[in-house]
C-alpha cells in the first residue's frame, strides 16, 4: 500500500518535472515589450502622470483589480475574526510582562517605523513603494506594539474605523471619477500637475494612501486576532 502510494506520488511529481523541463528548454529570453506593456510605457506618462509605472498600472489601469483585492483581504480578516472569536474575560493564564528595555525601545522605534511606512505610501507614484508595502510596514509596527504592551488587551475599534473610512473614501473617489472624469477610478479629477513632484498624477497619491491605510488596518486586524487567542482558554 505504501509502495503504491509513493510510486503514484513519484509519477505525478515526475510528470510535473518533465513539463517544467520542457517549458525551460523552449523558453527564449524576451527582447521586446509586448503591445500592452509598450502602450503603458509610451502613453502612461501623458495619460496618468506617475513616474512609477507599476503604480499607474495598479491604481489606474487595473484599479478594479486593486479594489477586488482589498475586498478579498477584508473578507479574510472578517472570516478569521469569526472563526477565532473568544468570549471576553476568559483569559486565565497570565501573560509575561514585557521588559522595560523593550518598552522604551518601542517608544522610540514605533514613531520612526510608522513614519517610514507613511513615507513609502505617500511617495508611491515617484519611487519604489506604495500602498501594499506601506501597509505591510504599518502592520509590522503593530507587531512591535503588541510585543511591547503584552499584558493589556487592545480593542478593535480604531482599526475598524480606519478600515471602514479608508475603504469608503476609496470607492467615493472612484465614483467621483465617473462624474468629473472619464470613468470609474479615473485619476484626472484634478489636473495632473508637474511631473515628478509630490502633488502630481491626479488622485493617485490619495488613492494609494487610502489603500495603504486599509491594507495596514486589515493585516493588523489579522495579527490582533491571532494575538488575542494566546492567553485564552480553549472552549
Amino acid at each position, binding site marked *: 500500500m505504501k509502495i503504491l502510494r509513493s510510486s503514484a506520488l513519484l509519477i505525478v511529481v515526475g510528470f510535473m518535472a518533465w513539463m517544467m523541463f520542457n517549458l525551460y528548454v523552449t523558453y527564449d529570453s524576451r527582447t521586446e515589450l509586448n503591445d500592452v506593456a509598450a502602450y503603458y510605457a509610451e502613453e502612461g506618462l501623458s495619460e496618468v502622470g506617475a513616474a512609477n509605472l507599476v503604480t499607474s498600472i495598479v491604481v489606474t489601469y487595473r484599479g478594479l483589480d486593486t479594489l477586488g483585492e482589498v475586498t478579498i483581504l477584508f473578507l479574510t480578516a472578517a472570516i478569521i475574526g469569526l472563526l477565532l472569536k473568544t468570549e471576553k474575560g476568559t483569559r486565565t*493564564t*497570565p501573560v*509575561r510582562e514585557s*521588559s522595560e*528595555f*523593550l518598552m522604551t*525601545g518601542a517608544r522610540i*522605534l514605533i514613531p*520612526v517605523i510608522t513614519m517610514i511606512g507613511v513615507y513609502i505610501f505617500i511617495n508611491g507614484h515617484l519611487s519604489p513603494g506604495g500602498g501594499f508595502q506601506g501597509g505591510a510596514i504599518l502592520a509590522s509596527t503593530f507587531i512591535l506594539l503588541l*510585543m511591547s504592551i503584552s499584558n493589556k488587551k487592545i480593542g478593535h475599534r480604531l482599526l475598524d474605523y480606519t478600515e471602514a473610512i479608508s475603504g469608503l473614501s476609496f470607492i467615493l473617489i472612484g465614483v467621483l471619477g465617473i462624474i468629473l472624469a472619464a470613468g470609474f477610478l479615473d485619476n484626472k479629477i484634478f489636473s495632473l500637475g508637474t511631473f515628478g513632484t509630490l502633488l502630481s498624477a491626479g488622485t493617485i497619491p490619495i488613492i494609494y494612501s487610502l489603500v495603504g491605510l486599509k491594507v495596514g488596518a486589515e493585516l493588523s486586524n489579522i495579527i490582533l486576532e491571532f494575538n488575542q487567542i494566546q492567553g485564552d482558554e480553549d472552549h
Partner: protein
Amino acid sequence: MEHLKIAGAIITLIGSLFVLFAAIGLLRMPDIYNRIQAGTKASTLGSILTLLGIGLYHPDWLLKIMLLIVFIVISNPVSSHVLGRAAHFAGILPSEKTHTNKLKEDTLETPTTKEEKK
C-alpha cells in the same frame, strides 16, 4: 575625490570583515547566549562601518546613511535583548562553561515555568 572613494572602499571592507567575524562567532560559540552576544556586537559594528563606507563613497547620501546608522544603533540591541529574554524564559540553560547565572532564582518566579511544573 579619489582619496575619499578609496577610504570608503577600505572602510566597507573592514565592515564586511566584522560581519564575517560575526558569522564565525555564530558557528563557534557553545550556547545561545554567547551566540547572541557574538552576532549582535560584531554585526552592529560591521553594518555601521559598511554604511559609513558607502556614505563616503557617495557623499550625497551621507545624511540618509546617518539616519540609518542611528536606526541600527537603536534597534539592534533591543532585538537581541528580546531574543535573549525569550530564550531565558523558554527554559534554555547556559552551557556548562558559564559559571555565573544571576537569573537562576528569577526563573522560578515567572508564571510560565510555574505552570509547567504543575
